[in-house]
């Protein structure tokens, strides 16, 4: 019996045979995630795990880690696998599926902290809070699929990020099983152990680490009281600059306490999106929509609503009857899950029920000072992509769904949220090679504007990862990552597919 098989047998004994699946269909089911890495490989067997394990407790995870460490078998933690990068498994590794770790452990209604196991589904977490009269600030798009632990593992994005920040800001503490089997509680602030005023922010290392440093088993997050008043506003713009300037002004840091979210939408996407759900015809003169969500006490919402309207008016914003119902855009986040169905666009599925496309999310983080210039250049780049001048084969199987929906990330930056559509079945070797060339040029454009490749979706093709990470962090920054990884996981058993 080889080491991996011995390891699996030992895990079966340790956590119960019924919690381990090593049949081939189950292993195939857990090999990839929503990410596009799998689009770039003709043979997906490179991602197929040796087994899928479903621990119920932290103790189960410790047993699994100890077995994996003993036999030096890789471990890849997985949540809902709707992320775009990092949850792909590795051939011969063991996928840890957190679904049975689904208990909400405690809630502190005075401190506004809630502690849950890593496998709690976001919908259950949100319902739990709502039933008690509270609201969540952990609000990603795929709430029905995402698990809590993944919020930390991928450093998640949240709907109300302008006001409340991303998951890295909302997580107060976490329990992590390290590669040597030790269980550690890391945290800051009032949600658990504090690093005090000195020392390292050890929790920060694990946020966004995608399981490469340890297995997150439990986390404490903050929540908020029910918000008493809400206003949704939306305006149309006939030119890109007016729309983007309105977006930038609405998200002026002075407004962030009331404008919890603002977002811009280009007609390239809107024209296509309306066709999935209606017979609506997009008015050609409207280039961009910008919407904003104002929340807080009623008097604050009233005042900010007036101010937002003034901002839009000054930048020639308007609304007309020939535009789609405001809830169409306003509910986009809530129905974004259904927007995965936009993979039907530009495919036979819309007209005959045939095959849908694959959505390729690519969102860079662009400094606000570069946003307008970047957007203009990016639009030209995408037109060139569709024309097939540089990448003729790619152009046959790769199209623009959205050229970018600017959305605030950290103060001063915008995540670009661009979506492409790939005809995955016909995405052949030549398409893959051309895609890598295309991606390199896309990256150069982002770096030219002092941006980063990784905002929400954080994708870099695996065989470019080391080169591109070095490019963004510098050789020294990259070496620091390697040093931390080596210190915490000397046998490289934690998500060994990630390149360090």
């Amino acid at each position, binding site marked *: 019996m080889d080491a991996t098989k011995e390891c699996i047998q030992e895990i079966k004994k340790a956590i119960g045979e019924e919690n381990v699946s090593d049949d081939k269909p*189950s292993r195939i089911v857990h090999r990839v*995630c929503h990410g596009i890495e799998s689009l770039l490989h003709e043979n*997906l067997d490179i991602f197929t795990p040796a087994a899928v394990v479903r621990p119920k407790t932290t103790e189960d995870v410790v047993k699994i880690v100890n077995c994996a460490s003993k036999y030096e078998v890789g471990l890849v933690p997985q949540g809902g696998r709707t992320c775009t990068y990092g949850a792909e498994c590795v051939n011969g590794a063991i996928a840890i599926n957190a679904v*049975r770790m689904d208990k909400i452990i405690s809630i502190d209604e005075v401190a506004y902290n809630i502690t849950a196991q890593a496998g709690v589904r976001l919908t259950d977490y949100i319902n739990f809070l709502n039933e008690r009269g509270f609201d969540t600030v952990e609000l990603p798009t795929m709430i*029905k699929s995402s698990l809590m632990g993944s919020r930390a593992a991928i450093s998640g994005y949240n709907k109300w990020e302008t006001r409340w920040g991303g998951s890295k800001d909302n997580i107060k503490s976490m329990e992590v099983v390290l590669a040597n089997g030790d269980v550690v509680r890391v945290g800051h602030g009032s949600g658990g152990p504090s690093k005090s005023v000195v020392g390292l922010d050890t929790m920060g290392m694990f946020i966004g680490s995608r399981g490469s440093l340890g297995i997150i088993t439990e986390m404490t997050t903050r929540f908020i009281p029910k918000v008493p008043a809400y206003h949704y506003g939306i305006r149309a713009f006939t030119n890109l600059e007016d729309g983007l300037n309105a977006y930038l002004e609405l998200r002026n840091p002075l407004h962030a306490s009331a404008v919890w979210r603002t977002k811009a939408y280009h007609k390239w996407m809107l024209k296509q999106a309306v066709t*999935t759900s209606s017979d609506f015809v997009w008015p050609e003169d409207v280039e961009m929509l910008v919407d904003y969500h104002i929340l807080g006490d009623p008097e604050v919402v009233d005042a900010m609503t007036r101010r937002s309207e003034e901002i839009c008016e000054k930048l020639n914003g308007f609304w007309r009857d020939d535009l789609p119902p405001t809830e169409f855009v306003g509910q986009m986040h809530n129905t974004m899950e259904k927007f995965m*169905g936009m993979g039907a666009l530009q495919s036979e599925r819309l007209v005959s029920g045939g095959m849908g496309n694959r959505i390729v999310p690519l969102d860079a983080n662009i400094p606000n000072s570069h946003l307008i210039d970047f957007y203009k250049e990016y639009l030209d780049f995408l037109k060139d992509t569709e024309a097939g001048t540089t990448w003729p084969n790619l152009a046959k199987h790769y199209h623009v769904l959205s050229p970018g929906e600017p959305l605030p990330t950290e103060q001063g930056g915008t995540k670009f949220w661009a979506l492409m559509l790939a005809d995955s079945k016909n995405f052949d070797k030549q398409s893959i090679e051309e895609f890598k060339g295309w991606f390199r040029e896309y990256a150069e454009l982002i770096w030219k504007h002092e941006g980063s490749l990784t905002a929400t979706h954080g994708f870099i093709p695996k065989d470019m990862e080391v080169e591109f990470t070095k490019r963004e962090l510098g050789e020294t920054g990259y070496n620091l990552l390697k040093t931390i990884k080596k210190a915490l996981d000397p046998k490289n058993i934690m998500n060994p597919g990630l390149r360090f």
Partner: protein
Amino acid sequence: MAIKKEDAIVSIEEFEPQVWSCVNCYCGLCIEECPVFTETKREAVTGRGMALIAHALLTGELDASDIDEDLAYSCTGCGWCEYTCALNTPVFIQQTGTRRTRVSGATLAEMFRMMKAEQGKVPKAVSDALGSLLKSGNPYRKPKKGKDRWVAGLNLGDSETDTILYVGATIPFEDRATEMAEAIVDVLKAAGIQFNILGSAEMDSGAFAMMMGEDGLFEEMTERTEKLIVEKNVKTIICVSPHDYDAFKAYYPAFEGLEIKHYTQVFDELLATGKLKLSKSVDKKIVYHDPCYLGRKNDIYEEPRNMLKRVPGVELVEMEKNREHTYCCGGGGTGLIHEIENIRMNQTRVEHAKEQDADCIAVACPICIQMLDDGVKSKNYKMEVKDIAQLLKEAL
């Protein structure tokens, strides 16, 4: 939209666009409320899981021998994945989608069952039920003549009507389903509705055969049923079972000119128009369990509730999972006759009713009544499971 019965049988190769659509989308919405996943936490048995497995079958990475029994026979066809699927949201699919074009875990599970049948590896309980369906039109290995005797005992008289009550494959071969059907008969009589029952000539509508993944039997049953209904010059079919109702709507384009109704639609109309009057009080706190094939599959949610609200003395409360979010009783697919380890949806559903402190679970399906009654007995709860027709009969 009804498709031809020969088009209802889909191979994995023909289903490839839907498999790819799911693999491309990967949203995983189908997993959240999939009852099999809720029971087992095993993703392989969900819509997305089965699509990924089908994809591997198409690429040759897996073959039929890799499909184990749990994988093939766990799905109950509850329709949650079809309802919630992001790739089923385009207008085209919503308006004209069929079994061939909708992404569906149930369709994939039925294909896996067909593969098992081709390999001759069908669980004994399923193969016995299939044999019995072919021979006697019921899954319980009971002689079909019993249906004629039962119909004779109903004293329907010699009616010239072109309306039939289609009782389906479970009646009168299972006691609880039969009591339900008899209540429907009594209520129809009380409202003065003329109707016939076809007796032993009535076999399976194809609903059972399809769910069990036996395509040859499905063709046989649908051909026989179509011929029978046409020969009898039937104009209106009132269905006892949501499964037959769904089959007639989905697989019988020849019936598009006929009026096909589930009995809850008929009763709701009779009550609304005053042709059926209820006078006695039925003092019960009742939860209504939406059958998957009535609700999610055919959008019939309000008629059963309207009826219950009209019953004097009834306090109607909702389970947390209701309407589109209903939780399957576990009897779909092959669940009625073949138990899978670790899957006890009927007991889970009974717990949902218990949470509401209900005296009675009202159902509108001859499969749900059996499954939930078994669930109540397993839990040893003092709770009744009754069909809405039985409650109406009490209130007459």
